[in-house]
């Protein structure tokens, strides 16, 4: 015993580009619950779970992303993983549900800048025009050959949730696109 071990993110080895940023550790929980439990989950989590498809809600440092009719990805500060999970389990005691920790399953890349949407368009087949994909929209989709969750946090700011083993691929494709864009 007495071992103290270091936490190591999936993108820690790649860390340079100017308009791509790897997010640090965060708590991620996948919540599955039927409509009857949404109110209880919202109050336990402190964020109103969006019921409009493909929309994200934020409150403070926490966020809830609608991914399906009974599915939300919940984000919270890394340190709060345990207490957030406990609060949700308590709050949902009467409702059949599934709460699974996925903090280490995926990581996030933030694409920020005036050409963010154009950069994403090299691999994402969705229409990222502000009218078609407004701020606050989120969805599961593909970036080239990597499955991702894409969340528009601002007019020129996107957050990509990606499974950790796909993250270096995603990063390298984005970084290549960024360099192409600068060369043009």
């Amino acid at each position: 015993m007495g071992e103290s071990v270091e936490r190591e993110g999936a993108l820690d080895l790649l860390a340079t580009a100017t308009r791509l940023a790897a997010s640090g550790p965060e708590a991620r929980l996948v919540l599955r619950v039927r409509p009857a439990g949404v109110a209880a989950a919202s109050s336990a989590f402190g964020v109103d779970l969006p019921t409009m498809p493909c929309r994200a809600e934020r409150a403070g440092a926490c966020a809830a992303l609608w991914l399906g009719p009974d599915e939300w990805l919940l984000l919270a500060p890394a340190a709060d993983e345990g207490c957030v999970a406990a609060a949700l389990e308590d709050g949902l005691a009467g409702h059949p549900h599934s709460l699974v920790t996925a903090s280490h399953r995926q990581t996030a890349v933030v694409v920020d800048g005036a050409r963010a949407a154009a950069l994403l368009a090299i691999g994402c087949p969705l229409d990222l025009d502000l009218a078609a994909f407004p701020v606050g929209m989120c969805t599961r989709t593909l970036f080239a050959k990597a499955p991702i969750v894409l969340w528009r946090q601002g007019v020129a700011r996107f957050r990509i949730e990606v499974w950790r083993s796909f993250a270096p691929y995603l990063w390298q494709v984005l970084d290549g696109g960024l360099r192409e864009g600068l060369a043009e």
Partner: protein
Amino acid sequence: MSEAFRTRDGGRIDRTRPRSFRFDGVGYQGLAGDTLASALLANGVHLVGRSFKYHRPRGVVAAGSDEPNALVGVWRDEASYAPNLRATQVELYEGLRAESQNRSPSLRFDRGAMAGLLAPFLPAGFYYKTFLWPRRAWARFWEPRIRAMAGLGRAPTLPDRDRYAQTYAHCDVLVVGGGPAGIAAALAAAAGHARVILCDEQAELGGSLLAETEATIDGMAAQAWLAEALARLAREPRVRVLPRTTGFGYFAHNFVGLAERLTDHLAEPDPQAPRERLWQVRAREVVLATGALERPLVFPENDRPGIMLADAARTYLRRYGVKPGSRAVVATAHDGAYRAALDLHRAGVAVAAVADLRPDPEGPLVEAARAAGIAIRPATAIAGTKGRLRVRSARLVRIGAEGEAGGGASAGETVGCDLLLMSGGFTPSVHLFSQSRGQLAFDPVSAAFLPARPAERCRSAGACRGTFGLAAALIEGYAAGEAASAAAGRGGAPGLGFAVTGAIDTRGGTLGATPHGRDAARVKAFVDFQNDVTAKDVKLAVREGFRSIEHIKRYTTTGMATDQGKSSNMNALAIAAVALGRPLPEVGLTTFRMPYTPVSFGAFAGFARGELFDPLRRTPIDPWAEAAGAVFEEVGQWRRARYFPREGEDMHQAVGREVRAVRQGVGIFDGSTLGKIEVVGPDAAEFLNRMYVNAWSKLAPGRCRYGVMLREDGFVMDDGVVGRMAPDRFHVTTTTGGAARVLATMEDYLQTEWADLDVWLTSTSEQWAVIALQGPRAREVLAPLVAGADIGREAFPHMSVRACRVAGVEARLFRVSFSGELGFEVNVPADYGRAVWEAILRAGRGFGITPYGTETMHVLRAEKGYIIVGQETDGTATPDDVGLSGLIGRTKKDFVGARSLRRAAMAAPDRKQLVGLLTEDPREVLQEGAQIVANPQTPAPVPMLGHVTSAYHSPTLERSIALAMVRGGRARIGEVLFVPMPGRVVKVSLCDPVFFDREGVRLDG
């Protein structure tokens, strides 16, 4: 100015910026704004290539992407070599190097021209009927020679270093083609505030306006109007204008592929900049404004250098300031050629005669030509031409009232010329419309196939719809853009009229071979220049019994070259229709296929090459394995450590050492790629009861079970250990390769069959790093690192699971074994995977802990007869076939595949069953996949009894072992069978598939 054929003024080239270039090693000069073709013509060079089959000298015929002859190789260095580029589309830059193709040793003296002398022996479809005798000569002699002759241009020998970009794009209105109709459409859509993409294959947008010097639009010279319209579009933030961008493919649901050429026109491109970009556009509405292509006339010897399309000649003169010759004969059936004749005449090119196939040509252009003193010969055809490397003369013959030309090889009048212009009229470019599955209809008035019923949300406008006048094209284009914008839910802009002056509408045209009065069997009148197909060939195909135009096309290869018959399809069709004695529309058109013009492989590949070809998935422990010198193997997208060789070890030695370490001490293995699914909810156990053959209800929390799932047909789909973490929570594992498939199958059943169950599935494959610790000393290594659980022999028996802490990290600890030894699998959150791995390694140092890879894992499990789904099973194995019928819950009423298992055939005694094989020679390792027979002496076909599924050298048994699936195998144990290999037969005896520790005592260490 060194360019002898350059006009003194005019054109869109920049006379202040000369450009040096080399063609076939000879230095020339051109101007910025030239294409390679226009620059060569400015230097009086017409001979630019040799034809595909007969190696005939060929010159520039067209001025755009329809060019069939002037195909060149262009390169900066070998890695960037691009063959078969149309010289008419290659933009000139300083230092450009290009070479002609299909000639040896040189363009002027070509050995392959011998093929021309052999022409009588190379008729259409010659490869189907000659060279078949003697039979063996085909493979040894003829085929290699024909293959050497086939193909045009050469592939680069070095890998392409350039970057190729790709992007998706969305718009309300995509306009393909930037001529007058396309620009008008884009203006209208932009006025309606639509998102617009306007693309054109040329370096400059404008289409026919670029060579227009007389017409005015809204009071402005046409080219001034063009400049203003483009400036207006450039100011629109929602409009994207893409020059040098070919709309090459039109796919379902308005998905259109565009290929943009970004740097090929630059003398010194930024090496970081992509060379091309593939646009994958999803458009709400599409406007096709792809224009029309001029048709050549099919007369004898119509392929000599110096014979070109009339409108192309006009383009060279007007747009590039190049006189394509000094003395011209014009052969036509269309008024447009008179405009070319007049332009050339005014530029000082002598026009010796205009031979018009029509008996009484009339109209303003004909009158103007007559007034200018140009000799017009009505009802006159070209009976032949002379000139080896350049046309020297044309023979003009009168056509009689019956449409036949005066006979004889010397009839008519021979006119000297170095330029022969031809115009058979214009063919609307309906390629993209047809690709989109839109239906074409033959219009007898214009004698053309025109867009009729669209299959997609698209509109055609301008010449591609048979609307030829400038004013009409502008108005139609604007209306199409407006309608498209409105249909896309944007505004419609008020209709714009265009006041056009000075544009003269033209008429006329002909299809098929023209009369010549010579022996039709002896003349070469080319239909398809690029594939060397003559009118004679098309007729021959009909004579030999081909009736469908699709068959005629394939037999003669007409229209099958890289230009896809842009200039030849209509003429070939007309010749076939005459030969078949059927009306042309009845014979029908061949299908248009993408790409409109060739697209480079690089554009399609984009960034998906090298290490980005496919995601390479690595585990959190992968960097450690790499540093430790592991040899890796790819398992699907995953990279896994296969073995860890020490200095001087080969795989055999390393695996032997690793296996012995696990059997005698302790080994450590990265199992992180294992698929994992968290199954949670009050109905979790019921759900698993339905999905797996096993029974789950009575599995206590803290215990695990090896589960097998079937497809509905009763065959094994996947397997894995399932641990019950809580009454309503299971930790399910799957095979590495099956992870996504199993989750999708489960989710499918849940959503479509059992939506009433309160259970949910979440993939946790990547949440957990999995560290397997296997061997008799595994517990001793692990115990000091574990907190929060007693992992002693009694408290933590085989097939148990505990939530605890390992090396200070929250973990799920399984006691499971895939080696037959005492084993643990430590699951920790992935970010801690490497650190915990290293902590265990440190703890195991005193025990000789040995990292091992997938190869050792495979050997260990094979020694124990544990199957691997996908290796022992092939999608046709039942649980009983692989010896797992004991897992099936006896009291279960149903599970996926249960009903199929009750079919009689699934219990037949001669099904292939899992057995072990031992070779007579203990050193002989069988080949996986080898067949097993009872008697190798049986005459073929020898009945196959089964096949080898796994074969290794077993370091534990110090001999070879193998697993196999053999018909009725369990009943044959003890028998001797045979494995035929090339040149020999291996004798094997059948045994129980468990080779080691049959009692399983080692599981407890």
